[in-house]
């Protein structure tokens, strides 16, 4: 297990290949929930919880179930089912803890299930930390850490976007582009700026 690898994973997942701004996963909730900072952070925390837990669960499933039985083609379906279960759990918890927050998220909470970012991490873990049918040394720890870092990257993008949108709320933007249109355009410019990290080589 290589400690430098953890640093690489952190910098890649959070900045260089940011899950939202470079890989373009998880955009639905990014555009919809980033209007204010508080809900944006709450959504980010929920997504991070799901990415971490799904990394923890999908790894042994891939390693000890799919590979030995030659069922690796079932990975998308099985990963999705694991994620779906966790999101259901998160939903139950939020409903209990904070009904207003639950109502606020509306449909975007169950949609964490199909948040491309979450499935993306699981698939990424498999692609990056397995070679053929063998797990590289430290694979499990790298995968879990990547789950953490992707969650952090998601949080970073949400934080930036909510800061921008909150500030624009105080401004006098043209009515036609208020809210969603402008959010898309901001996302477009942010992702243009993240093109600067293309072709990265450590």
């Amino acid at each position, binding site marked *: 297990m290589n400690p430098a690898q953890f640093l690489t994973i952190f910098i890649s997942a959070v900045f260089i290949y940011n899950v939202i701004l470079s890989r373009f996963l998880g955009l639905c909730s990014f555009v919809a929930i980033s209007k204010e*900072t508080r809900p944006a952070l709450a959504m980010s925390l929920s997504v991070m919880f799901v990415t971490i837990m799904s990394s923890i669960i999908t790894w042994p499933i891939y390693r000890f179930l799919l590979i030995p039985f030659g069922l690796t083609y079932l990975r998308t379906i099985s990963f999705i089912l694991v994620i779906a279960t966790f999101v259901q759990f998160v939903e139950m918890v939020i409903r209990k803890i904070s009904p207003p927050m639950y109502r606020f998220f509306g449909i975007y909470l169950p949609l964490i299930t199909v948040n491309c970012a979450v499935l993306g991490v699981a698939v990424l873990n498999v692609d990056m930390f397995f070679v053929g049918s063998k797990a590289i040394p430290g694979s499990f720890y790298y995968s879990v850490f990547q789950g953490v870092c992707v969650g952090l990257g998601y949080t970073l993008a949400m*934080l*930036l976007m909510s*800061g*921008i949108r*909150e*500030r*624009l709320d*105080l*401004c*006098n*933007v*043209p009515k036609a*582009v208020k809210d969603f249109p*402008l959010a898309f*355009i*901001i996302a477009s*410019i*942010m992702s*243009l*700026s*993240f*093109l*600067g*990290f*293309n*072709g*990265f*080589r*450590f």
Partner: protein
Amino acid sequence: MKNNLIVSDSPHLHKEESVTKIMWLVVASLVPAGIAGVYIFGFSALRIILLGAISAVITEGILQLLTKRKVTLLDGSAFLTGLLLAYNLPPKVPFWLPMVGSLFAIAIGKQIFGGLGQNIFNPALVGRVFLMASWPKYMTSFTQPLNYDAVTSATPLALIKEGKVLENISYLDLFLGKRGGCIGEVCILALLLGAIFLLMKGYISWHIPITYIATTGILTYIFGTKGLFSGDWLFHILSGGLILGAFFMATDYVTSPLTRKGQIIFGIGCGLITAIIRLWGGYPEGVSYAILMMNGATPIIDRFTKNRIYGTR
């Protein structure tokens, strides 16, 4: 009853000078760099500068008419945006490139946010990265300095990105602008003249540019090609668009933090990202991307570095 209450958003500047005067003075401070660019690269550079600046002004006028807002195209801010965009272009691009770039810069980088004071990102840089992503072929073809026959050459940063050794180029060459590059970025001497003027008059403060340049210099020194602490930091400071970006674009009031502390964070962030892209990224230069990313972070930086006013939470 005359409305004596003015509600506006930041920055709340109480200076005697108006926005118009400041804008045109910044334009004036950039003239030396433009003259140098035209001298080094020929009249095509002049054409690009004029096309860029005028297209920007026209775009702003049309958009303000369409959206029934006050027409402010003479306040110099659109002209400045077009000028800066042109300064960030290679000298032999097709005539329509600065026009399209200025259109995009003003429309998407500025007016769609509601106009001056409300844009989040530096409009000239928004235009530049748009052009870079759309027509990379044109945006990466540079010509030799002082050779008006359009002989292509690579910029110093591009050469070291490919691992080639630099020959026949001295620090003095870099300082005076005898190198391939974008129109307004090459002549450091001319740029510094304008920058010193702005600093002395107090139109920009040293916090952002100095922290920006210092951070880039330190990082490129530490992570040199021949091992740690062997980097050619002077070369890096004098190359690419760092001086142009640090003094004239990163310092834009609207798109950078309000507090001194925030500005230092901003400068360090820009320097960090620029150095990282130059050292390990795919592109030879990262100034535009770095500044845009930090522009995006500015609202959050402001939020967390705001001065506590007595009586509020």
